[in-house]
């Protein structure tokens, strides 16, 4: 994993469909911390995550990783950043293992085995995802957190449809990411139980 010090959003303005979602947002996010984007429904939380991931272009402003503008080095950025959107790219027709192998081709069989064991998915390894419940499908998407080593995690509602045990498991994983010096930015409507989250406020 690459190590960095800070991710700086400088004067970001986002517009979606003629509507200003945020104007002149500036945040300095330190690595080793977790940031929670808070705001009402429709305030633009997901759009902000997409802007940081590089999927949307802000109408104004730049994002810096340490001192470098990320839009100048998108290739390096996509190696450092893991984005899981609301639709998380899990293929319903593929089995759990095939999905994981598609996104994390370098993961060894052992690592996949331990990750699946932790996520309670071991007995479903060869089951198509369409036969799993919503919470289990979410776990399949989240398994990428266990198997790849990006420094920056951008997670859109990662806790949705997870049960209590799943939530605790994910919080553990987020904590580990912070301890090894990573950065987590997420949106969620529920309060985190154990991790001390900094908040990025979006107002309508």
């Amino acid at each position: 994993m690459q190590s960095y010090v800070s991710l700086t959003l400088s004067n970001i303005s986002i517009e979606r469909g003629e509507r200003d979602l945020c104007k002149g947002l500036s945040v300095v996010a330190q690595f080793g911390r977790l940031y929670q984007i808070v705001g009402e429904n429709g305030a633009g939380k997901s759009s902000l995550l997409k802007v940081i991931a590089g999927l949307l272009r802000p109408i104004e402003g730049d994002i810096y990783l340490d001192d470098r503008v990320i839009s100048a080095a998108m290739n390096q950025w996509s190696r450092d950043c893991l984005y899981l959107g609301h639709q998380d790219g899990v293929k319903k027709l593929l089995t759990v293992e095939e999905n994981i192998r598609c996104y994390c081709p370098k993961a060894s069989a052992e690592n996949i085995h331990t990750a699946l064991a932790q996520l309670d998915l071991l007995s479903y390894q060869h089951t198509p995802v369409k036969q799993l419940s919503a919470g289990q499908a979410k776990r399949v998407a989240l398994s990428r957190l266990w198997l790849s080593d990006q420094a920056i995690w951008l997670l859109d509602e990662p806790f949705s449809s997870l049960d209590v045990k799943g939530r605790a498991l994910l919080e553990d994983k987020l904590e580990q990411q912070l301890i090894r010096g990573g950065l987590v930015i997420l949106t969620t409507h529920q309060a985190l139980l154990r991790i001390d989250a900094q908040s990025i406020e979006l107002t309508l």
Partner: protein
Amino acid sequence: MTYFSFLRAECCLVWRRKQNVVNSVLFFLLVIVLFPLGIDATPMFLSKAASGIIWCAAALAILTSIDSLFKEDYHDGSLEQWLISGLSVPILVLIKMTLHWLFIALPLLLLSPILSEVLYLPDNSFWPLFLSIVLATPSLFLLGGIGSAITVSLRQGGVLMLLIVLPLYLPIIIFATSITKAAQVGLPYDAPLAILAAIFLVSLVVSPLMTAISIKASVN
């Protein structure tokens, strides 16, 4: 994600969705069987119309199958993952289209000897027909991919896609059928064959780029 892991996942997906391939091929066969029944089943008429019938059926079968090329990827968020994977999206698109071409066009090619017998196609025009299918169906897929990517975020995008793609299909179908027509009367058919090859090469270069741009626009 790497190109290879993407290719492997896409192969699995095409295989799991083999019903779609069967549907397209069945549709192709049905059109060909119904045509003579509806118009005229005499060998004199059919031997002249055979290549046209086969080509119309092939174009329709490809159009119906290509409509949903990126639909599922759009709805499950895979397109977003392609865009931020750091891989070249035009190459991913090309991999996907090549796979679909293999799965749809190969059955059509395998069936073409039987069908040309069924439709009394003269022997001297079978190989020209075969060549025209080999050269022209990739262009149909490549150009159809652009339309499919532009309309992927629309709920009822099917008709719009037809409107975008059909004008691009016309020259291909005209030149493809003129190959067999020329062969039937013993004329050389190098010129339309060369034009089909040129259309294929141009769409091979242009289509993945355009499709990638359309995907980017659709995801936003």
